[in-house]
C-alpha cells in the first residue's frame, strides 16, 4: 500500500528492522522523493527521528558510458561525454579532449585554451547557482530557487549563443574548440557577470544570512579535515573543511597557471561552511572570467584534425584531472592505436561524496537533515552511475 516503499522495490535491505520487538524501522528516501538530488536512493534505518544506519543505492542512471565509449569512434564520443554529469557537463568535455591531446600530443592554440577556461568557469557558476536552489529547497525556502535558477538561465543563454546548446555544449574538440566567440560576445559575458555579482548580495539577504538557514545548516553534516582527507573528499567539500586543495592551482591545466584567483576555504567543516565556499567560489569564477576575457589573445581556435571517421589516436594512456564544481574530475584513457578508445575510465567527483562519505555522515543525523546533508555535499548521481 505504501508508495515510497514499493517504489523502492520492497527489498528488506536492513535485516532486523521492522521487527515488532525492534524500535528501528526502515525508511526510504528516493528514488522518487523531492529531497533527493537526481535519481538516487537512500535506505535508512531510523529510530525515532535519528538515523541509525544509512546505505545509498545508485545505478538508476546507469547508461554504461564507459562501454558505449569503447564501441564508438573517438569523434562520436565527444557528443556523449557531456551527459555524464548533467548540471556541470563541461569538465567532461574538457577531460575527454585533453586526454586525447595528451596521448596524441596535439597542441591546443592559446586562444582556444582561454576559451575553454571561460566555458569551464561559466559552467561552474551555473552549477553552483543550481546547487543553491537545491539546497534552499531542502529547507523549504522556495524563493531562492526561483531566483537563482532563473539567473542561471542567463549563463545558459550565453552558452546557447556560443555553442548552440543550453545544457550540453559539445564544444571542446580535441585540438581546440569548435568555433570562435561570436562578435559582441565578450561584452554580453561581462554584462551577465556584473548582473550575477549584483544579485549575490540579494541572495545573502534572503538565503545565506537567513536565520533559519543558520539555525539549520550550522553544525550538521560535519566533515572534519582529517576525516575529509581519510575518506577522499575533494573540491568544495574538502575546502569547506579548511584544506585548500584545488586542481586548478596544484595541477594546473589550460591557462589556469597564468590566472590569479584565490581558493576559498571554510573553517567549521559543516554544511553551511561548504555552502559558503561555493558562494565565494562564484566570486572567484567571475574574476577568472574577467581576466580570461581581458587576456585572451587573437588567433586560431582549432588545430584541424584528420577525417573523423578514420581518425586514429596513437597507442598510449593518460590520466587527466579537472576541477569540476563538485570536486576532482578525472578521466583515464587508454588507446590501442585504433579508431575507438580502448578504455575510458570516468572518475566522477561524486563517487566519494555521494556514496561512502554520505553514508558516514548520515549515520547519527536526523531525518529532517538527511536531504540537506546530501545537497550540501553536492553529490551528482549521474557521475556515480555513469
Amino acid at each position, binding site marked *: 500500500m505504501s508508495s515510497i516503499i514499493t517504489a523502492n522495490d520492497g527489498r528488506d535491505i536492513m535485516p532486523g528492522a521492522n521487527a515488532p520487538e525492534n524500535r528501528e524501522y526502515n525508511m526510504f528516501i528516493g528514488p522518487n522523493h523531492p529531497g533527493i538530488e537526481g535519481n538516487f536512493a537512500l535506505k535508512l534505518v531510523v529510530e525515532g527521528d535519528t538515523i541509525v544506519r544509512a546505505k545509498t543505492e545508485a545505478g538508476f542512471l546507469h547508461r554504461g558510458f564507459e562501454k558505449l565509449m569503447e564501441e564508438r569512434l573517438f569523434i562520436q564520443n565527444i557528443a556523449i561525454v557531456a551527459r555524464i554529469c548533467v548540471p556541470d557537463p563541461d569538465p567532461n568535455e574538457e577531460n575527454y579532449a585533453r586526454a586525447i591531446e595528451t596521448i596524441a600530443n596535439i597542441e591546443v592554440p592559446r586562444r582556444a585554451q582561454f576559451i575553454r577556461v571561460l566555458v569551464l568557469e561559466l559552467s561552474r557558476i551555473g552549477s553552483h547557482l543550481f546547487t543553491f536552489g537545491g539546497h534552499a529547497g531542502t529547507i523549504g525556502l522556495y524563493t531562492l530557487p526561483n531566483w537563482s535558477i532563473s539567473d542561471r538561465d542567463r549563463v545558459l543563454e550565453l552558452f546557447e549563443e556560443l555553442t548552440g546548446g543550453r545544457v550540453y555544449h559539445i564544444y571542446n574538440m580535441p585540438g581546440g574548440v569548435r568555433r570562435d566567440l561570436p562578435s559582441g560576445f565578450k561584452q554580453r559575458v561581462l554584462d551577465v557577470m556584473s548582473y550575477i555579482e549584483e544579485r549575490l548580495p540579494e541572495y545573502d539577504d534572503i538565503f545565506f544570512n537567513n536565520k533559519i538557514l543558520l539555525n539549520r545548516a550550522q553544525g550538521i553534516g560535519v566533515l572534519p579535515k582529517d576525516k575529509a582527507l581519510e575518506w577522499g573528499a575533494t573540491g568544495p567539500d574538502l575546502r569547506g573543511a579548511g*584544506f585548500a586543495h584545488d586542481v586548478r592551482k596544484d595541477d594546473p591545466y589550460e591557462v589556469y597557471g597564468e590566472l590569479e584567483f584565490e581558493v576559498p576555504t571554510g573553517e567549521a567543516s559543516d554544511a553551511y561552511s561548504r555552502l559558503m565556499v561555493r558562494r565565494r567560489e562564484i566570486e572567484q569564477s567571475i574574476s577568472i572570467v574577467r581576466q580570461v576575457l581581458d587576456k585572451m589573445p587573437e588567433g586560431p581556435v582549432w588545430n584541424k584534425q584528420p577525417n573523423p571517421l578514420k581518425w586514429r589516436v596513437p597507442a598510449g594512456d593518460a590520466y587527466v584531472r579537472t576541477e569540476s564544481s563538485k570536486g576532482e574530475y578525472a578521466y583515464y584513457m587508454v588507446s590501442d592505436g585504433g579508431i575507438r578508445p580502448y578504455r575510458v575510465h570516468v572518475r566522477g567527483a561524486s563517487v566519494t561524496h555521494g556514496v561512502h562519505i554520505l553514508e558516514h555522515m548520515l549515520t547519527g543525523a536526523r531525518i529532517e537533515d538527511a536531504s540537506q546533508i546530501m545537497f550540501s555535499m553536492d553529490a551528482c548521481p549521474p557521475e556515480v552511475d555513469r
Partner: protein
Amino acid sequence: MNAQTQAPTTSRPPAATGAPRMTEALVSAITAETGIATFRTKSPRRIEGTVQADALHSFAAALRSRVGFEHLSAISCVDWIAEGEFELVYHFWSYRDSHLVSARVRIPREPGSMATITDLWLPASFFERDIHEFYGVVFQGNTDLERYILSDWKGPPPMRKDFSSRDFAHEHFTFKDYEPTWDELIDGGYHGQKRQGEGSDE
C-alpha cells in the same frame, strides 16, 4: 555578513621547485627497496610504473606513509583480452608535492583476483566494488563487494571486452521499427557484420 563569510582565504603557494625531484627520488628508493621496476616521470607531475601484484599493497603503504600520497584518486581496470590479463591502474595523488603516481598491476584474467587496499584508503572501497561489478575481479579482503550499480543485472560483467553491449541490447530490448544504418560507413556496420557472421556459419 557573518563570521563565516569572512573566514580567511588561503591561497596555497605552488609546490617548491625542488619537490618533484625529491618525490621522484623517493619513489625510486621505494621501488628499489621492494625490488620492483623503477618508475619514470612521464610528463610533469605524472610518474608511472609497474608493480607486481603481490607487492602492490606494501608499495602503496610505503607510498602513503613515506612520501605522503594521501589521496587515492582512482583505480582503473583495463581488459587486455588478447593477453588474457586485466591491468589495474592505481592513481595516487600527493597533496604535499602535487604529484600523481600511476602504479600498474597485471593480473591474470581468469581468475581475476587481487588484494584489497581498503585498509589503507577508504575510497578504494567504491572503486574495487565498481571493478568487481563491471569486470568480475575479486578483491581479497574487501567485505563490501555486494552489487551496487548493477543490482538488477543478470548478464556477465559488462565491461569485459567479450561482452557486446549492442548484441545484448538487441537481445533484450524491443526497438522501434527503424534502426540507424549510417554506421555501415565504418567497418560494415553492425548489421553488415552480423550478415557476414551468419553467412560464414552456413
